[in-house]
């Protein structure tokens, strides 16, 4: 996990993307397609198993102006939360039901 990756409480998720078992760069490509359907500030959660995802998600957020809210490793899986850029980032936090 990147040292720069913010660690936050789990935000409220607007869309959950299952990109497990996909190889680089498919998790990011799927994330790009998924986030295009969301409004600015909405939160996309991405599950992935590709080990490069830990590096790629922060880079993708940075070059596209999205906000990486946090990442968490769960065994072999990575879970990342991204607030779509282009507007105020979501300030909603809390536990998922």
């Amino acid at each position, binding site marked *: 996990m990147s040292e720069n990756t913010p660690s936050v409480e789990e935000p409220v998720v607007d869309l959950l993307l299952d990109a497990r078992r996909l190889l680089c*760069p498919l998790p990011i490509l799927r994330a790009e397609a998924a986030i295009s359907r969301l409004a600015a500030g909405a939160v996309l959660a991405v599950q992935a198993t590709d080990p490069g995802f830990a*590096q*790629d998600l922060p*880079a993708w957020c940075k070059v596209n102006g999205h906000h990486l809210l946090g990442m968490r490793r769960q065994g072999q899986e990575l879970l990342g939360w991204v607030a779509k850029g282009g507007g105020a980032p979501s300030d909603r936090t809390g536990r998922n039901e």
Partner: protein
Amino acid sequence: MGAPVTPEMMPLSPPHTTAKREVAALGLLSGGLDSMLAARLLLEQGIRVECVNFYTGFCIQNHTGAMRNPTPGASPPRHDALHAAQLLGVKLHLVDIAEEYVRIVTNPKYGYGSNLNPCLDCKIFMVSKAWALKEELGFDFIFTGEVLGQRPMSQRRENLPHIEREAGVEGWLLRPLCAARLKATEPELRGWVDRQRLPGFSGRSRKPQMALAAQFGLRDYPSPSGGCCFLTDENYARKLKELWNFRGEKGYTMEDIVLLKAGRHLRPAPHFKVIVGRDETENRFLSGFRAGRWAISALEVSGPLLLVEGRPGAEDLTLACRLVARFGQGRHRAELQVAIEHEGTHTTCRVAPLPATEIPPEWYL
């Protein structure tokens, strides 16, 4: 696209010309040093740069690293183009062209390189795709990190203008790294790009690029010698050809081309093949492809996951079980318990590991 112009007719643009109007360029970014430098050279001239990276399904891009146990001390895997865009501070458009790319791989107009690499067709296709995106997003021109004479097919002097013509972008594709050796393009002729500030790199040596990278303070870039496409890999190309021969037609699915990147592939008979994981990470990866196949693993000892593809009979599955026993920790035992999973049905059997002498070399793909 404008009339052909010789380098002698080229206008010399003063540096201030580019500041009068925001010029925007879209570049093909592989994430390698050359494409990074091309983007950086244009950024230096005050041009707004965004980049595009195409996913073909054959990108090496850390796939092996993602599927095999990591080498101790190795850098964590990452997508080079994303990382390069981050370093350059430019937006990157990731575009999936894998489905359309099947046509390029299976029926290339200009044939293959040394393996199954359709480099010339690939470059024409990518340039035309980049042009379409440039039109959609409203950029002024496109650019690449190509270097004259660096690669045997797509970067030969006679092929560079051919690529532009075939892609329908004649005069509008700038190659900043070797621009000084090429005919001036429209962006140069119109004074958007100062041709005098672009180098004339040529040949296979990477030293000039590495020197320029040092000048720009770029240090974190992939090894210049690294290939970026599995189709240039001899072993991979052999397995893909074998797949086509076996099926009697050229074609592939995304699962096919991903699975060809993982495991040992053996074909004991024309009607079935097996894929054997080589380490824990690869076993885990292969386990995601159990659907429609037979998944076999030893129960009592650690060892590989083996997938069977095709139309195996009972004897073939027994052979596959003996192969699993052979490639695992129990290879010296008299018998092993093996589990078989197929379409949600689980069975077990006891088999003797297949001796190495009973695995003909021609089974290995």
